Every structure is written in structure tokens, then in C-alpha cells.
């Protein structure tokens, strides 16, 4: 479960990234996060794996208050959260395989398991044949899919995606969203930031709309 209670994030320059955010996403649920550019979507997502801290208010993950969590507890939290970063954070001089394998190696899997899981994750994003390619040899869309595969590979309890289909054509975007939806169907909590309104409409998923750092609307799933 993800819960935000009166969360604000004010940047050093005085600008508010988020202001008084309250919402709750129960375990196994899925939601979309929408809003204009600069509305605070990335700011909100970064608070969940404690990549950033709120200036006030509480973020609770699975009932744990992140404010009360010490630095040494972050790794454990982050291993349970898969993140598709808006800015890829891929190691461009490394192979596709190495990039996707990293979360597994970091959490203590042996090479055999790593290989199997990396294969499975790359298969899900349609890049099975590209393991040995270097990231810099891939197109923008392909890099984005590696980014997605890396978030899925650990079978996280929570999946966060920040503009995951920014570089993808409509067919591929749909395909990726189907994957996320499948994850949600097997019990993973999923939160996706996107402003691809047409695409979002196709899924029976509630939407949290942000506007200038505040929640402007909470729309229940259509259909």
C-alpha cells in the first residue's frame, strides 16, 4: 500500500514541487498519475522509493513511515520497488544484459537465475535478441524498453513508471501498458505517470490528476 498524508515537497529555490498531497493506493491496485508538464508527477514518484524526501507530511509504504526509516533501510525498500525512470539512468557503455541484470546482482541472485530472469524480462519488452548490444547502439525507444525491462526483472511488489512510453509508437505503447496491467492483475501495486490521454482511456484504471503540485481531481475508472 502506498499512502501520502499531507505531503509537500518544496525545492531549495522556494518552488513547490508538491503541495499537500493526500491519497492512498491499496496493495495490488493500479493508478495513473496525470498532469501537465511540471505538475509534479516525477516529484511524487521519487518520494516512494525514498529517492527524495518530503519537506513535510508523511509517505507510508506497506504501513512503514519513510520519515522514520534510516538510510541503511533504503536498499531493502528500493529492491521491492521497480522504477521506470523518466531519464533512463542506463549505463550507456554497457551491454543491454548488464543493465537489466544489475538489480538482480545487487539483491543477491546467482548467474543462472540472473540469466533466466533477464531473458524473461527482455522477452516481455520484445528485446530478447539484443542482450549483447551496447545501450548506445540502441534507438531511443529500444533504450526505453531496456529501462522497462530493468524495472520488471526483480518482480517488484510495487511498480512505478514515469512517462514509460514517451519514445514509443502507439502499438508498442499499448503493448507495454498491457504488460503493466498484467502485473497489476497478479497483485503488484502499479502507479504510472503519463500524459498520453488517449492511451490511458483504454484501461479501466483510476486517475490521480496533478495540477501545479496539487491533486486537482481523483477520477474513478471509466467503463
Amino acid at each position, binding site marked *: 500500500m502506498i499512502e501520502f498524508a499531507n505531503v509537500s515537497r518544496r525545492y531549495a529555490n522556494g518552488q513547490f514541487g508538491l503541495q499537500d498531497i493526500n491519497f492512498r493506493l491499496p496493495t495490488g491496485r493500479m493508478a495513473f498519475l496525470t498532469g501537465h508538464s511540471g505538475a509534479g508527477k516525477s516529484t511524487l514518484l521519487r518520494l516512494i522509493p525514498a529517492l527524495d524526501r518530503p519537506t513535510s507530511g508523511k509517505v507510508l509504504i506497506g504501513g512503514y513511515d519513510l520519515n522514520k526509516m534510516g538510510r541503511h533501510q533504503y*536498499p531493502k525498500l*528500493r529492491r521491492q520497488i521497480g522504477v521506470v525512470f523518466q531519464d533512463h539512468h542506463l549505463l550507456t557503455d554497457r551491454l543491454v544484459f548488464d543493465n537489466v541484470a544489475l*538489480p538482480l546482482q*545487487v539483491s*543477491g*541472485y546467482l*548467474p543462472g537465475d540472473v540469466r533466466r530472469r533477464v531473458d524473461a524480462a527482455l522477452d516481455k519488452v520484445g528485446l530478447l535478441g539484443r542482450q549483447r548490444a551496447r545501450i548506445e547502439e540502441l534507438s531511443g525507444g529500444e533504450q526505453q524498453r531496456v529501462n522497462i525491462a530493468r524495472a520488471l526483472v526483480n*518482480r517488484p511488489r510495487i511498480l512505478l513508471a514515469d512517462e514509460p512510453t514517451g519514445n514509443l509508437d502507439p502499438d508498442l505503447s499499448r503493448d507495454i501498458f498491457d504488460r503493466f496491467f498484467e502485473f497489476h492483475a497478479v497483485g503488484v501495486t502499479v502507479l504510472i505517470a503519463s500524459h498520453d490521454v488517449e492511451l490511458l482511456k483504454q484501461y479501466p484504471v483510476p486517475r490521480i490528476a496533478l495540477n501545479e503540485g496539487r491533486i486537482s481531481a481523483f477520477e474513478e475508472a471509466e467503463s
Partner: protein
Amino acid sequence: MSGPTINEARANSEKSRRPLAAWRRHHRQCLRGAFSRLIRRPVGAWATILVLGVVLSLPALVMTLGHQVERLGAIWMSDAARMDIYLATDADEAARQTLRDWLDRQATVAEQRVIPPEEGLEALTERLHIDGLETLESNPLPWVIELTLSDARADTRLALAEGLREQSAVAEFSSGDDWIQRLEQIRAFFDELGWWLLILLGMTVVFVVGNTLRLELHERRREIALIALIGGTERYMLRPLLYDGTLSGLLGGVVASGLVGLALSVTSGPIERFAASYGAAISPQIDPALVLLLMTAGALLGWLSAQVIGRFYIGRLSTP
């Protein structure tokens, strides 16, 4: 992903996680990585190791110098393992015999030779090249017993001196032990100086290794930041660095040992000749304990450096 429920998937996931085996594997990987980085980036890495070697060799050279002084001093002092006892003027034949018997019983006395005053006067005359001393009305010289001691150590001499003070027939004896004590003090001084230098220069080592590691951290900063984002622990990020630092330090210790060995072999000629002139044979060689000390100190300092620099930079790279 169809079929398995989330719980099955999670159970599977937990089963295939092998933290201990993976931890061992990561250690092996980091060790191999440290070696391969050394081979891949030879200039910078080896320059650091060379600097370490030179820095560490300084205290080692001082300590070695101390040991050589000790060994050469012992040879030199073997000549000085002697003591002259001057008897009291009122000591008669019986008193002299009592003293000689007592000396015979001392384990520290190897040999004794009695020099009567007449013989002493003759020797003195000869040595000073003066005539007419025979004409002196009475011989002013006392009876002398010349001792050869079992060894040249200061304690031996001190123990004997204590006994001698109790003997009534003894008026005076040449102590000579201040020379030996001085030599021992010199060696102790060199040893202490060596340790202080090691500590002082050890800090230099921490900075030299630290600077190289900092460059490496800078090169890998994106990877480290990413590992932090996906849940890598600080230890995991630190591990390769610890291996790099320890390996550099260890090799620095090896280079330092080599330098000390080189210095010894260059000076071995004069040292051997000196020893030979006293009928002794020594070939100066680096003390294995010193090699061990240098390698241990190098490795420890390298490791320490990686801890300090690593924790500082990784902390900065991985906090939001």
C-alpha cells in the same frame, strides 16, 4: 506473465535468491576486477603503487639501518668483550687468589690473565716510548686482571660489575659498558624513528591511495548512483573499492620491500668487508618480518583509505 499467482512468483523469487553464495561471488568478482583494472589502466595505478613503495621504503630503510648498526656493533663489540680489573694496593697474594677463584666461578668470564705491575710498567714504557720509568723508586701501577667476557652484551657486563663491587680486592674496573648501551640506544632510536615515520608516512599513503580511488569513483559515479537507486547497499558499492585499495597497498609494500632489498645489496660490499675485517661473515639481507610488516601495513593503509574515501563519496553520490 500468466499462470503463477503473485505468491508463487514471490516464493520462487525468494528461493532463487542466494545472498551468501552471491556475496562470496561478489567478493571473487571484486578481486578479479581489482586485478583487471590494474592491467587495464597500468600507468595511473602503477604510478600510485610506485609512490607507495617509495614512501613505505623510507621507514623500512631506517629500521634496516638500525638493525645493521646493531649487527655491526655486535661484531665490533666482540673486540670489546673485555674488562680490566685494577686491584687494590693492599691486596696481598691470598686476596688475589680469592678473587681469581671467584672469577673462575663466574659463567660470564671466559678467560682471565693476571698482569703484575712490572709487566704493566714494561708495556706502558713500550707504548709511550719513554725511557727511565724503570728508575722509579716504586712501581706506581697496581696488579691488573684482564678479563675476556663470554659475550659483549651490556647485561653480562652489568651483572659482573655488580659482583665485582662486593670484592674487597678490587679497587676499580673499566666499565666500558656505556659504549654498548649507547649502541643499543642508537638501535632503539632507529627502530622508534622507523615506526614514527611509518605512522606519519602512513597518512601520506592514505591520501595517495585515496586520490587514485577518488578518480576511479568519479569515473564510476553514474554506476554508483544507479546502484543506489535500485537498492544496492553501501557495502556493495564500497566492495570493489576496498579490493582496489588493499591490492594497491599490498603491492606498494612489495615494491617497498624490493627497494629496501636493493639498497641492502648495493651496500652489501662495504658491510661484508667490515665484518670480514673482524673475522665475521654476514651477508646483509632483508628481514622477512620486515617484508611482512611492509605488506601488512600497505594493505591495511590501502583498505583504510578505501573505507574513508569510499564512504565519503558513496554517501554523497547515493543520497538524494
